């Protein structure tokens, strides 16, 4: 297992290298002089030269990349061109809100999806199954920003049960924190719930067909034991995989959801930076999210060990 973890960590190096090259090249995709685009039409030649110097744009591309990479590796993600704060500080300020939102969305999706998927598989081809699948289909078809708008219209503007926008940190007031994140987490979690329900159902159906399930039933195992202890545990691998893969979907979804609900997370930071042409922040956010995503894939791979002890980590 330890060998596998080390090997898996090493396999992240080329991936992170590609990620850093892409993030670095983002600025160079800007048509024309990136410094001129960042500063706008009113920039003086002196300001232009200063920014070019600051970003190292007047050096050869390879040198620029290695300088940039060196800074990144030492934790220096540069400065925001708008607020003059360090990009890393901005990310630290914004990450808690995004992470809280994602965690609640994930929680909501699992709480809805796993029971729904189990019911659907156990009552295969009955009204229960069709009902659950209809809910899942609506989940995967409704865009999360539209769901967000409908939730605001219904529960904030008409019923007044929840605040429509804003964010309160968990350390300030727990109740208000939950109240502010309830609607956005639902908007975000609904899509994920649809995907996970479908995966739970098909995975459970596959496992319920296996011989060992028949054996447990023949030995007198109750349905509860069969479903929860054996079938569900053995269905968890594809379910965890799909949750892991879709973590990226949640990270992407936060951008729009944070924009609608005015949550000061990294998604909102990204959108603001795009409009401000604040490229160091854009690069910082994208890099940070990609690194989180790569780490999540690592965690998902390691979680397999718990749910499937049959996987031999010393091979391949």
């Amino acid at each position: 297992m330890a060998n596998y973890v080390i090997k898996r960590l090493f396999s992240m190096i080329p991936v992170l290298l590609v990620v850093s090259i892409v993030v670095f090249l983002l600025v160079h995709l800007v048509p024309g002089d990136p410094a001129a685009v960042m500063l706008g039409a009113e920039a003086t030649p002196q300001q232009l030269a200063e920014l070019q110097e600051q970003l190292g744009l007047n050096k050869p591309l390879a040198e620029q990349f290695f300088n940039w990479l060196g800074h990144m590796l030492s934790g220096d993600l540069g400065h925001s061109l708008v607020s003059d704060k360090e990009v890393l500080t901005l990310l630290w300020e914004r990450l808690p809100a995004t992470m809280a939102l994602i965690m609640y969305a994930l929680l909501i999706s699992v709480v809805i999806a796993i029971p729904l998927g189990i019911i659907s598989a156990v009552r295969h081809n009955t009204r229960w199954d069709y009902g659950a699948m209809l809910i899942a289909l609506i989940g995967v078809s409704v865009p999360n920003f539209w769901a967000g708008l409908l939730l605001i219209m219904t529960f904030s503007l008409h019923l007044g049960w929840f605040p429509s926008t804003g964010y309160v940190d968990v350390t300030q007031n727990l109740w208000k924190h939950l109240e502010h994140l309830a609607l956005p987490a639902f908007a975000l979690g609904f899509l994920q719930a649809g995907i996970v329900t479908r995966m739970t159902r098909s995975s459970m159906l596959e496992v319920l067909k296996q011989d060992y399930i028949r054996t447990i039933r023949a030995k007198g195992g109750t349905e509860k034991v069969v479903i929860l202890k054996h079938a569900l545990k053995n269905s968890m691998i594809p379910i965890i995989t799909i949750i892991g893969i879709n973590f990226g979907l949640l990270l992407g979804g936060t951008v729009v959801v944070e924009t609608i609900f005015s949550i000061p997370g990294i998604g909102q930071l990204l959108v603001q930076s795009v409009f401000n042409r604040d490229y160091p922040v854009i690069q910082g956010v994208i890099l940070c999210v990609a690194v989180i995503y790569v780490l999540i894939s690592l965690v998902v791979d390691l979680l397999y060990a718990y749910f499937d002890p049959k996987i031999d980590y010393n091979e391949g």
Partner: protein
Amino acid sequence: MEYVEITKEAEKKGQFAEQMRAFWKVFSIRKIAAFGLAIVCFVILIAILAPLLAPFDPVEDVDYGNRIANPSATHLFGTDEFGRDIFSRVLMGAQVSIAISVSAVTISAVIGIVIGLISGYYGRWVDNVLMRIVDGLMSFPPILFAIALMAALGNNMGNIIVALAVVYAPLFARLVRGTVLSVKNKEYVEAIQVMGGSHIRILFKHILPNCLSPLLIQMTTYFAYAILAEASLSFIGLGVPQPEPSWGNILYDGRQYMLEAPWITVFPGVAIAVTVLGLNLLGDGLRDYLDPRMK
């Protein structure tokens, strides 16, 4: 499951007419998939005929005297803050959204096919290098990556297509590579190699057809994702620039008027949800038809 036998039967006969018959049989059993197909055909038809069907010009027909008007016989979906007809804007939005999604998915599939075929077929360092690039690109959540690309390229319709194509191409490449790996060591491929068949001929004539079924299923799914992605980009102001309508930017307009004019928010959202629902149902049906073992 009856459609499994139907599909296998058609596979044996291998004739186009037989396959089409099997397709209709599967879709007549899976009525819900047929419903999905009907929705998708309907939306595509609307998108094509939008200029003829739209009662008003979605951009030019501004009527300040009729701002945020309720849905009525003249304005079926009401009007927006400029008095423009929402029904016409949703119809034309269909054209824009579908055109962007179809182009993006087609381009990404073509790029993905080429990379996947080369990577899977040639293996070794070529595969290693290409797949590490693909892994790296897949480490970015799609929407975020698209936003970053749009930030660099600037927002216009062409760039949305480029951004989405770059985002989805690695996913197609992975899929095609997987299929190539499972096929390339089969005896018939080795036989053609021994007989002196060129690499290009083997790749495109003998290996590629095996990739088409999973590719078609994947394309349907990504078509749905692309519609959602385009709408998301336009919704945050990074997609189709105003005043050109797209489902996402109509929703963006409606945001400020949610209380007094909910129709601006409701109708384009319904259009997106119904189209994506249709594509999902169609994708499930295609999966039953093309790859019954996955069921």
